[in-house]
């Protein structure tokens, strides 16, 4: 195996393991920590895909900002163990898992059937500045300027909405 493949397997196992930890752990705080672990491994996968800027963004925004928000709310609510709850294995849940397995099959088969799925990735074929700040910023400010501004409006709406929803009395 090439070093690239070794790192891919390592990061993939980490990402899947972290996500499974979110699903399986009993305490929500453990779920949050597992999710942070999963995000770090995903950032490693982005580096393997030469998406350097997105890898940094993943750690800064996801593992940094969003997860701090989650952990903050978990600490704020201070759940007692009676409120955690762990359901029994019901028919509905089995149906849910079966449905999810079917959707995984459909997703994987449709994506693996795409024309680029067999494309082999290696470092030599990637343009020099691929995935760094400069080309992304240039495209964001020219070709994708409207979505970029819409994202800023969306974040503004998010800020105002969070204040309006969470405040007891305005």
């Amino acid at each position, binding site marked *: 195996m*090439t070093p*690239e*493949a070794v790192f891919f397997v390592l990061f*993939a196992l980490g990402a*899947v393991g972290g*996500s499974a930890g*979110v*699903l399986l752990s009993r305490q*929500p705080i453990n*779920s*949050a920590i597992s*999710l942070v672990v*999963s995000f770090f491994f995903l950032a490693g996968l*982005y580096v393997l*895909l*030469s*998406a350097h800027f*997105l890898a940094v963004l*993943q750690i800064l*925004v*996801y593992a940094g*900002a*969003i997860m701090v*928000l*989650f952990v903050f*709310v*978990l600490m704020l*609510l201070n*759940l007692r163990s009676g*409120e955690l*709850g762990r359901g029994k294995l019901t028919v509905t*849940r089995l149906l*849910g*898992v079966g*449905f*999810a397995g079917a*959707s995984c099959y459909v997703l*994987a088969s449709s*994506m693996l059937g795409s024309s*680029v*799925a*067999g*494309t*082999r*990735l290696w470092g030599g*074929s*990637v*343009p020099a500045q*691929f995935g760094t700040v400069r*080309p*992304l910023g240039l*495209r964001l400010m020219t070709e994708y300027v409207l979505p970029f501004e819409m*994202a800023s409006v*969306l*974040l503004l709406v*998010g800020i105002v*909405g*969070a204040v309006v*929803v*969470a405040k007891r009395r305005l």
Partner: protein
Amino acid sequence: MMTIPVGWYLALSAVLFTIGAVGVLVRRNAIVLFMCVEIMLNAANLAFVAFSRAHNDTGGHLFAFMVIAVAAAEAGIGLAIIVNVFRHNRGLEVDGLNLMRH
């Protein structure tokens, strides 16, 4: 020189998306539900970046960038709603949210 096919990344993305979907269907704690939604968004991001690398086109990175912005807004508002729900009925079980039914 043997290297990784894009298909591996796509398969991993499908597996991560499925884990997130199972979480949304199986777990009952509202905050853990939100975390599972984040996993699904990340799976979509991974597929975007993998396709972007396969085509040598940074458009997919910009899509992933937008997804991260949407996820941030969603987490902010969603957690505000969760705080309100917790104040209202002293728990985070989504099964207990049946106010509209009565």
